[in-house]
């Protein structure tokens, strides 16, 4: 037998077996365990895709080895659906996230489902678009479009150790920013273009002077890197608008023990996978501005005097002390194996200061557009409710109600609870003494539990409070 003939057949056999196995795994998932209906939509989409892939007529022009390879990527998506379970994901968080998502995209926009990541972090994935990419080279474009039509699905991946991660919930605001960027991409690119056009022209001239044959290709990669910086900063802006000062605290916590002065560009075999991150110092300085930390702190000083909470002043000082100087920033471009990394580093470093100015101006215009596009309560939280909730936390009382001169009070908002919890936890951590670490673990666990419960109670209070008026 000729291996040239039977080897592809054997790979096809393995692929078909893998399709069956993946489909069976998806079939056996108990949809009652899904946190929302969108998880089931993701499952159905994958099942439909697998069914299409094994259609005999579709298999004829397919390369079996490409099918085999792509099935591993599709399996990774199936695992996301399998990890979407109420056993691990708190429903009040999902309910609040769904509420924010609905404010942003309404009934007709993209849908989101929730899953877990083994990493201690949060991330969002455009699930349906990712699936479409995995089908590239396997099915004709018309078939891919037919599968994805009316199925614009995102997956928010939550940290699996989320019991110890409540204050980092603020990062979810940043992740939602990615979905907004996708849906306003044309407008946002135009805003960015207007603010960085002269910089791009200068970079292009430099690349052209080095090697005119490679200038357009390299310029394209630089453009994607700049777009990457802009996207991350835009998402930070959204995080600051949705979550307020708690997002500053979250991002600062993520930056702990790391170099905060380095901008990074990770080049990739294809443009859309180029990743670019501004330095933590630059990001923190932008977030401080857009989460209106200075006016929050000024109000906090007043509220602390009125309510007699000395701790609030300490917390405000801490917020204002978060490092934001970014004048000694540098740029790192990788991987070293990519032949363009040195040139990209050279040209972007040269225009770094102008680029920062351009990105800052871009963000100002984005902030205005965000206010036009969405009806968001701005600022999302003020100092007074946070001060009231801090007081309750200090006395180990559920931080779910803001006094309003009625017997019941007003249910606290998601942002108010999140900010109070994040700031109080920070105060506990900053005050830690080595000899009392057991006490600290107990205290932070109490705060986390009180906060989780407050999310639950305030959600119920807000949603089912209508009876009181009837």
């Amino acid at each position: 037998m000729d291996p040239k003939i039977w080897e592809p057949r054997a790979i096809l056999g393995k692929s078909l077996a893998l399709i069956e196995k993946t489909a069976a795994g998806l079939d056996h998932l108990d949809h009652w365990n899904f946190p929302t209906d969108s998880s089931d939509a993701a499952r159905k989409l994958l099942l439909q895709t697998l069914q299409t892939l094994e259609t005999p007529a579709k298999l004829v022009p397919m390369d079996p080895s490409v099918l085999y390879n792509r099935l591993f990527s599709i399996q990774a998506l199936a695992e996301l659906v399998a990890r979407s379970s109420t056993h691990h994901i708190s429903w009040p968080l999902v309910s609040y996230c769904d509420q924010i998502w609905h404010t942003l995209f309404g009934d007709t926009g993209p849908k989101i489902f929730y899953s877990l990541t083994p990493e201690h972090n949060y991330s969002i994935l455009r699930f349906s678009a990712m699936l479409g990419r995995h089908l590239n080279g396997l099915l004709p474009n018309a078939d891919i479009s037919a599968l994805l039509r009316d199925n614009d699905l995102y997956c928010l991946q939550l940290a699996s150790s989320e019991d110890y991660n409540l204050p980092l919930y603020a990062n979810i605001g940043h992740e939602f920013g990615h979905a907004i960027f996708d849906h306003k991409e044309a407008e946002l690119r135009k805003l960015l273009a207007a603010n960085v056009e002269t910089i791009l022209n200068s970079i292009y001239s430099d690349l052209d002077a080095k090697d005119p044959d490679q200038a357009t290709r390299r310029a394209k990669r630089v453009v994607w890197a700049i777009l990457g910086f802009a996207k991350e900063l835009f998402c930070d802006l959204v995080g600051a608008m949705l979550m307020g000062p708690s997002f500053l605290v979250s991002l600062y916590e993520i930056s702990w023990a790391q170099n905060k002065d380095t901008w990074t560009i990770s080049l990739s075999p294809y443009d859309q996978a180029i990743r670019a991150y501004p330095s933590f110092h630059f990001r923190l300085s932008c977030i401080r501005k857009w989460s209106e930390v200075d006016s929050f702190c000024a109000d906090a000083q007043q509220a602390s005097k009125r309510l007699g909470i000395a701790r609030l002043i300490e917390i405000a000082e801490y917020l204002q002390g978060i490092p934001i100087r970014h004048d000694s920033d540098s740029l790192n471009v990788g991987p070293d194996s990519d032949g363009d990394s040195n040139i990209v580093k050279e040209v972007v470093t040269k225009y770094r200061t102008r680029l920062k100015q351009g990105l800052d101006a871009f963000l100002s215009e984005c902030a205005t557009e965000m206010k036009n596009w969405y009806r968001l309560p701005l600022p999302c939280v003020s100092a007074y409710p946070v001060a009231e909730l801090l007081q309750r936390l200090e006395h180990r009382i559920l931080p779910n109600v803001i006094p309003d001169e009625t017997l019941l009070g007003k249910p606290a908002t998601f942002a108010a609870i999140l900010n109070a919890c994040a700031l109080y936890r920070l105060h506990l951590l900053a005050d830690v003494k080595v000899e009392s670490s057991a006490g600290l673990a107990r205290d932070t666990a109490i705060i986390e539990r009180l906060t989780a419960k407050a999310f639950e109670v305030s959600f119920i209070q807000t949603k089912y409070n209508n009876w009181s008026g009837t």
Partner: protein
Amino acid sequence: MIPNAVASIGPFAELWSHLKSIDHALERSLDSKNAESLTELDKERLHALVELLQMGVAPASPEPVNLLTCATPLDPDYGSSINLRERISTLPAFESWKKSSRLGFEPKVQKLIDAIQGFVVKPPGSLFPKDAPRQELEVLRAIVQDLLFDAEAALQQ
């Protein structure tokens, strides 16, 4: 551990799949049994090769800002990570093809692009299938396989 490149995931696996599916379409086009009945997928993979080559010989852009406003966000663009000009011009199969011709690099690549486009597009009303431009398809296959070799090496690292 024995590296299993074909079972990898990530951007390099996507590049490998992209190139491998193009190579498969070229192989099918060279097979006389299929040349008469290219499927939609075959044609699209050949078109993907045209896009890759066009990026490799892209003319200087007078308006670099257009790169920012015109790029399509969803379709993966593999062209700009590969220094195609360098790769193709040093490839023996490309060098020996039309050796006697005085054409420069760009016109030669354009000839390859034209050959694919002419092969894929069947003129309206035409009853007979076109003959595959075998020479050009073989040069193109050599180019794709050279790129595939690198993509596979990246997967094994």
